[in-house]
């Protein structure tokens, strides 16, 4: 109980610190924290200037973790990310190879504009994101926990970009979209950033605390029908499944992988704990579903041609799949 209370307190504190710097984006901030405590990675998508990089940097400031930023460009090579062997000369004049660790060896990694690098370079993140290790000469090298990759990409610039491969994109627990600020938020942004003092976030939690909170989140019980609901949602994204939603049946080529169901349940558990509950609910699943599933659906040609978005498909699935069998008993 004390751990749960501490979780809630720490969660609220991190959110509060981030919101001292970031204006708006409350849901986005919450989801980034859900991903942090789910031990997952986040893909942030938004047009330039919405604060993607600032958000990640602020998060790193809140947490007493090592932070590194990788600016992805077309000429970026895998060795630029994971590191390389360099010739080192010791005091005796002997030369030898030594592995020089790349920026991936941090705890919070900002992969800025990840879609600007070639797939070869993008795939350098695969092992690190999934296995939390880096294989290199003299390795493999384990990455220090907690390890969080926050990647950003710009949805409107297609020239000179390389869309993330499906295997890569599936490794992100959430794909979050940044919306343009409202009028009130825009005024607040101007006030905060054009004054003499710049807001800064303070350190709230350390690495071990984060790891403990991640472990605690996995202890949150979820009832059978909640787990069933998450699984039914994922099944409903598959167009050939008999439980497929109406839009999914029509517009989806490939549905979500099992990682989608894992993301739903993990995110729901963290959300429950963050809200002071000790059980994951179907409402948590519903709140998590768009971020957890939108990047895991691949639309078919008809869907692409008609401009259907995966969020529309997910909304229709949420509306069509009953959340609880007890609804039939409640006349």
């Amino acid at each position, binding site marked *: 109980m004390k751990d749960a209370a501490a979780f809630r307190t720490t969660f609220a504190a991190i959110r509060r610190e981030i919101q001292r710097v970031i204006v708006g984006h409350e849901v986005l901030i919450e989801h980034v924290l859900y991903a942090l405590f789910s031990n997952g990675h986040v893909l942030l998508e938004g047009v330039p200037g919405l604060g993607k990089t600032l958000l990640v940097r602020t998060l790193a400031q809140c947490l007493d973790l090592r932070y590194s930023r990788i600016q992805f460009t077309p000429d970026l090579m895998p060795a630029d990310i994971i590191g390389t062997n360099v010739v080192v000369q010791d005091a005796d004049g002997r030369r030898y190879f030594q592995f020089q660790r790349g920026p991936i060896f941090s705890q919070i990694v900002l992969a800025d504009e990840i879609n600007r690098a070639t797939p070869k370079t993008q795939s350098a993140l695969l092992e690190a994101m999934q296995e939390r290790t880096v294989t290199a000469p003299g390795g493999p090298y384990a990455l220090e926990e907690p390890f969080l990759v926050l990647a950003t990409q710009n949805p409107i610039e297609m020239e000179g970009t390389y869309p993330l491969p499906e295997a890569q994109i599936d490794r992100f627990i959430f794909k979050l979209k940044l919306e343009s600020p409202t009028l009130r938020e825009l005024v607040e942004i101007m006030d905060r950033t054009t004054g003499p003092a710049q807001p800064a976030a303070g350190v709230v939690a350390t690495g071990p605390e984060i790891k403990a909170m991640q472990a*605690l989140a996995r202890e949150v*019980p979820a*009832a*059978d*029908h909640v787990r069933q609901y998450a699984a039914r949602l994922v099944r409903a994204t598959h167009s050939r499944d008999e439980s497929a939603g109406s839009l999914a049946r029509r517009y989806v080529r490939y549905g979500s992988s099992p990682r989608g169901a894992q993301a739903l349940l993990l995110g729901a558990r963290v959300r429950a704990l963050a809200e002071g509950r000790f*059980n994951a609910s*179907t*409402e948590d699943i519903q709140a998590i579903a768009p971020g957890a599933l939108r990047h895991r659906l691949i639309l078919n040609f008809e869907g692409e041609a008609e401009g259907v978005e995966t969020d529309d498909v997910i909304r229709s699935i949420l509306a069509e799949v009953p959340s609880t069998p*007890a609804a039939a*008993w409640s006349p």
Partner: protein
Amino acid sequence: MATSIRTADSLGREEISAAVGAARRRLAARRAWHWSGRAALAWILAVLVLTLARAVVPISVPYALLCGLGLGAGALAFLLLAVAWRVPPLVAAQVLDHRFGGRDRTATAVEILTGAHAGSALSPAAVADTARWVLAETPQDRLRWRPGPAVWAALGLAALTVALGWLLTGVSVPGTPARRVAETIRHEGRRIERAADAMSEQARLERAPVARRLADPLRRLGEDLQRERMDRREALSRIESLGRQIEASRRQVRSRRDQQEEKPAASDPALPQQLFRRRAALDQAIRQFQEIAERLAQNPSPEERRSLLRQLEALSRGGSEGEVPTRGREQAAQARRRAAAGDTKAARQALRQGALDMEELRTLLADEEGLEQARRGLRKSADRIARGGGGPPETEPPSQAAVAPSGSSPGRRQLQQGEGPEEESPPPGPNQGSTAGTGTAQDKQGERTPRLEGERPQTRIRGMQGEGRAVTEDLPGPGRPAPVRVTPGRASEAVRAEADRYMSRMRIPPEYREIVRRYFEALAGAR
């Protein structure tokens, strides 16, 4: 302090169990209420449809009874289902969460408490959290047991059905079977009213008190059938009710007649024509008694006296056809003895007494005949209404064809048989077809003209021949073929005595006796 030291698990178990148990009971009741209400709603909807269908199809729907049955069956089903329905605890917990915003707390706690969920470090905390929520929100108390919309709809529809059933009674859509039934009911009402008038007139002429008394309710029934909006079931019910009343009266009259005739009481109804013949024979016997008494008073000659004594002898044996009842025979025998002894006055007294006894019997016969006719008429009307007027044209059964008082002549019967729909077509001959001159009889004569089904009042002449008034009545329309009424001619006493003598010798069937008598009288008139 000991009681306050409880684990989180034990803290929550009682509260959660109580809440889920209450929810299970209320859910079972609600679900039973829901389904029984739906069943009652479906039932009453069906009754409503049937009630509305009465305007098209002639069906009898006891809508109030059916609505009551539906509601009663729904209530009974509710009680049975509420007791028998076992709601699983997990389902009850899910319903509590779903309805009262428990966010799956209770279902998770129930799974933890029942062992369905693998325990974790936060399981006790989850149970305790659920217990706090249950105590704070008390969802089991808010799970109110209120009649659902289906129940209110069923009650409203039941009221609507009863109201519509009452408002739509007798209302029918033109051109539908229901309209034909309604027209048949009104038509039969007119028929019954006319039959009641005829029965009243006949009873007045025949001095039949019971038939006259029952003519009034018969007329009222006929008027009601014409005036009130009445469905087939109600019309048949009222006809049956009056039919039972008439049948009870007829049995009483029959019983009294059997007592008069010193026969064992019989309950089987006699045919009206049998009663009429019996009454006609009785009339003849009465007339003979009166004629003999008058002739005894006129100082008859010895030859005539002997003739009278022979007639009295024949009457004391029951007449030529046994038409004289027992008491009449006794009186005839006594009169013969007195007349043979020369006591003419006592003989006349005995004959008058015999005539009076037979008059009383005759009145009972008239009553019985009138009641039987009314009973049969009602049955016929009921049959027509039950058939809904959609059947084949009404045919007069052979027994009904001879109901008319003077309709017992063979000529009339032959005529009716020849005109009936059962008339057999002549056998097809050779060269039959559409060629001119080779068609069937039906082709040549065309279709039968429609019958108006008018009831001909049964009137007859009472009293001595040549006396009294002749009663005739005009019938509108073609009507039914009836025997020609012949005005009684005048004939001398001698001719009548001779005719009586010959007729008493010959074995003449009662129904031909009057014809033979007229034949002789016509012969005498021609001379």
